[in-house]
C-alpha cells in the first residue's frame, strides 16, 4: 500500500495529543504532549520537561531539567521533532 503524497509537517498532525520529543538549539531538548503547531514549527506542549545540556568546570557533561505545565516554543529554535523512544 503506497501513501498518497505526504508532507513532513503531516507528522505533526499525527502526533497531536501524543508525547513528542523536540530537539532545540542551544543543547536543549523538551518532551511533552503536543497540542498545537504551525508551519513555522511554533508548538504548544503540556506537561513539558526541558533538559539543558552543559559542561561543568571540569568539562563533564551535566544536564538540568525544568518542568512546565504548558509551554509555547518558538519555531526558530526547533531542530527536530520525533516520537520519544523510551531509552
Amino acid at each position, binding site marked *: 500500500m503506497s501513501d498518497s503524497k505526504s508532507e*513532513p509537517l503531516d507528522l505533526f498532525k499525527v502526533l497531536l495529543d501524543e508525547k513528542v520529543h523536540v530537539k532545540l538549539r542551544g543543547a536543549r531538548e523538551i518532551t511533552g504532549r503536543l497540542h498545537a503547531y504551525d508551519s513555522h514549527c511554533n508548538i504548544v506542549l503540556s506537561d513539558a520537561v526541558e533538559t539543558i545540556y552543559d559542561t561543568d568546570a571540569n568539562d563533564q557533561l551535566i544536564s538540568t531539567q525544568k518542568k512546565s505545565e504548558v509551554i509555547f516554543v518558538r519555531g526558530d529554535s526547533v531542530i527536530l521533532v520525533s516520537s520519544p523512544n523510551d531509552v
Partner: protein
Amino acid sequence: MDQVTNPKPFVKSLLNKRISVRLKFNNTTYEGLLESSDNYFNLSLSNVTEVTYNETDGEVKERVSLGDGKVFIRCNNVLYIRQLSDEELKAIQQQELDEGDVKDQ
C-alpha cells in the same frame, strides 16, 4: 550540454532512499530513510540514527538510534543532504552486527 539536476528533482529522486542529512552545527548528521520533503526542504525521515562527530578529528563520536518512528527535521538546520552509498550502508550494517556480537557476549 548534459541535463542539469535542480534541487527539487534531486531531493525527489532521494525519496525512500537512505540519506545522510548534515546539520549546520553540532557536528551532527542524521542517517535515515527519506519519507518526504516539502517546498522549503523540511524533511521527514524514518529509521533514523543520529551520528555525532568529533570537532577535533571529524571521526564518529557516537551513533544513537532514534527508533523506527518518523523524525521531522526543520529545513533551516540543514547544511546538506546526500545519498548513502552501498559501501557506506554495508559498513553501517557490519558495524551494527559487530556491536550486536559484542553485546551478546
